[in-house]
């Protein structure tokens, strides 16, 4: 079966531009997670959905970051007015339940110039 897919795989943005990153979770997975990973570091939690409900957004670094999952399946992470410090790999993961192991997508590498 298909795993978690993310698009685009690479994104280059000029500082100040808005970007939208898409995540297609594994079909039937209730929980969806977004993480940010800097080079050589472990992923940092951003936000978590259970179906369409965003249950925890405590990791979003600023109000420029916004995530949605309107129909409980595909999710979009939007970053407004991108800054250089937003450059990172953005990982999406899904799981059947929140307490189980995550299945990660390949990530979107965002570079802000």
């Amino acid at each position, binding site marked *: 079966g298909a795993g978690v897919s993310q698009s685009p795989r690479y994104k280059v943005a000029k500082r100040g531009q808005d970007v939208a990153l898409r995540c297609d979770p594994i079909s039937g997975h209730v929980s969806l997670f977004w993480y940010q990973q800097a080079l050589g570091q472990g992923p940092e*939690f951003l936000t978590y959905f259970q179906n369409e409900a965003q249950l925890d957004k405590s990791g979003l670094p600023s109000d420029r970051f916004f995530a949605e999952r309107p129909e409980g399946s595909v999710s979009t992470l939007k970053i407004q007015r991108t800054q250089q410090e937003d450059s990172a790999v953005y990982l999406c993961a899904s799981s059947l339940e929140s307490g189980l192991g995550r299945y990660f997508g390949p*990530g979107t590498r965002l570079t802000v110039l």
Partner: protein
Amino acid sequence: TQLLEQSPQFLSIQEGENLTVYCNSSSVFSSLQWYRQEPGEGPVLLVTVVTGGEVKKLKRLTFQFGDARKDSSLHITAAQPGDTGLYLCAGARTSNTGKLIFGQGTTLQVKP
């Protein structure tokens, strides 16, 4: 402040050697997971441990959860070049949380 500290951060060994990676915290975790990540890919789940003192084996990999559920270790026997990658531990503070806290990772290089 890193809630989960992994050590060592980097490890370069010869094929056939044994190694242990440690994941330590001052906090108690409901469960702990280990992942392996290769360049350009997302982390892949290796194991989940939930009971203090639990030991799980996956071929040449042995995972242990500390009795107090504050630490964990990953031991690899007779490492092979295919074991090369970034090893990450990740803990959940409660059983129903969606927030998984990752360590900073251990980069392992196994030379043929």
